């Protein structure tokens, strides 16, 4: 009875604490708020029409173009950009490179939110979203489908990242025993998460293996799963650099002076990793190009578009990363990370939208409602990220 009273008292304390933390802090009239609040409100109205009148009411999707930017950007690109979580946790917990320990929490949080919001946006895109649970509950399993693997992995990886981040929540709620217990599970969760990530990053590419006749041959190859996996590594590293740059400006009050100094070394290390991975990715692309005899395909507009992606947004940022690391130039690293991110976004959109049914005259273009909902998803994610970072010990641990 005494134990029950203690547990009840502790539970009430946590609820009161969480309720206090929910109250807004700081200024309301910031540029980000002014832009994002109307986007979120309009997006919610669009979603109302989407769920009441159907997906065709607000999107330009049809039987020929089932994949629009909600899948191409939110899901396929978003998951690639969230690759930093498994890369950094591998580097810190498996390779024991403690230099990067200070960015583990924020990177895992980014990854968790990316999966929850971007992969969660999948429910908006499904014609009958309540069927999303079918692969999980065993209704029409479809275990021969790559989508079966991807859906299970998304679910498991979200739970894994929630477990990896849970010590931070316990620390915030001042639950010391729970924090110690959850921290003890981290290594196992990290190893499980890395395994899941490698499989579903490549699994997303494998989804497009069945679309061979529909994807332009410059973007299709039987190695597309490997290319998706390798590119997710440098996409994640570039995203950490990009996000870290913004966080260091926006949340500078939460960081100590020592963090600023360590940050420079961390960015240089991340830039080195990105340069090496992009170099490998570029040569994979070159090998596939030669192996599949694509010489005659690069003489038209599609070829120039492909070369722009591979040379302009892979090889050039690769050299920029290498040069910047060598010369300890953070400015060039930040520019290179933006170019690398643009390259990833372009690559994923090329596979899913732009070069999909490339031979059609009547092509798919996203409606304004699709664009607003995509911006809404990104805006809400940033709101949640900001709320967590300003309250929990994400950037200011130790």
């Amino acid at each position: 009875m005494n134990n029950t009273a203690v547990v009840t008292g502790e539970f009430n304390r946590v609820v009161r604490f969480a309720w206090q933390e929910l109250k807004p802090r700081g200024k309301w009239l910031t540029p980000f708020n002014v832009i994002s609040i109307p986007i979120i409100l309009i997006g919610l109205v669009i979603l109302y029409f989407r769920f009441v009148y159907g997906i065709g009411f607000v999107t330009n999707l049809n039987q020929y173009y089932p994949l629009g930017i909600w899948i191409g950007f939110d899901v396929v690109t978003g998951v690639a950009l969230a690759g930093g979580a498994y890369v950094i946790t591998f580097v810190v917990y498996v390779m024991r490179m403690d230099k990067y320990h200070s960015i583990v929490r924020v990177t895992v949080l980014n990854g968790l939110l990316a999966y929850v919001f971007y992969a969660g946006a999948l429910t908006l895109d499904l014609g009958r979203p309540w069927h999303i649970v079918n692969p999980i509950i065993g209704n029409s399993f479809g275990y021969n489908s790559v989508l079966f693997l991807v859906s299970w992995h998304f679910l498991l990886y979200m739970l894994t990242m929630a477990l990896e981040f849970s010590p931070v929540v316990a620390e915030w709620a001042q639950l010391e025993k729970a924090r110690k217990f959850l921290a003890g599970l981290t290594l196992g969760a990290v190893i499980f998460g890395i395994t899941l990530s490698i499989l579903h990053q490549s699994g997303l590419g494998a989804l497009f293996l069945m679309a061979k006749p529909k994807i332009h041959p410059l973007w299709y190859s039987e190695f597309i799963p490997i290319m998706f996996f390798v590119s997710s590594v440098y996409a994640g590293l570039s995203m950490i650099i990009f996000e870290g740059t913004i966080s260091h400006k926006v949340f500078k009050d939460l960081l100590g002076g020592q963090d600023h100094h360590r940050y420079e070394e961390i960015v240089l290390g991340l830039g080195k990793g990105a340069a090496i991975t992009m170099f490998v990715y570029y040569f994979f692309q070159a090998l596939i190009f030669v192996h599949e005899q694509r010489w005659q395909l690069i003489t038209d507009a599609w070829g120039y578009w492909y070369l722009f992606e591979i040379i302009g947004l892979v090889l050039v940022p690769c050299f920029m990363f290498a040069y910047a690391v060598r010369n300890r130039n953070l400015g060039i690293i930040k520019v290179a990370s933006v170019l690398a991110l643009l390259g990833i976004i372009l690559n994923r959109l090329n596979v899913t939208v732009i070069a999909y049914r490339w031979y059609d005259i009547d092509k798919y273009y996203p409606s304004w409602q699709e664009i607003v909902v995509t911006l809404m998803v990104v805006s809400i994610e940033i709101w949640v990220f900001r709320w967590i970072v300003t309250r929990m010990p994400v950037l200011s641990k130790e």
Partner: protein
Amino acid sequence: MGLQVDSYPHAGTQQRIGEGVEMEFYSYLNIFETKGLEYLLLISFLVLFLLLIRYLAVPGKKD
């Protein structure tokens, strides 16, 4: 596009030895058909990769 993608080029003619075709009919000098270009690319990758690692391993002075 006039090009069959995902095809596997043969390293020479498809006719077999002993079917009345002389050996010199084979063209081992065609770098595309023998996949020589792929091997060269792979070797150059390994060499360049080592150079890149060496380049990144020794940070220079700040600009």
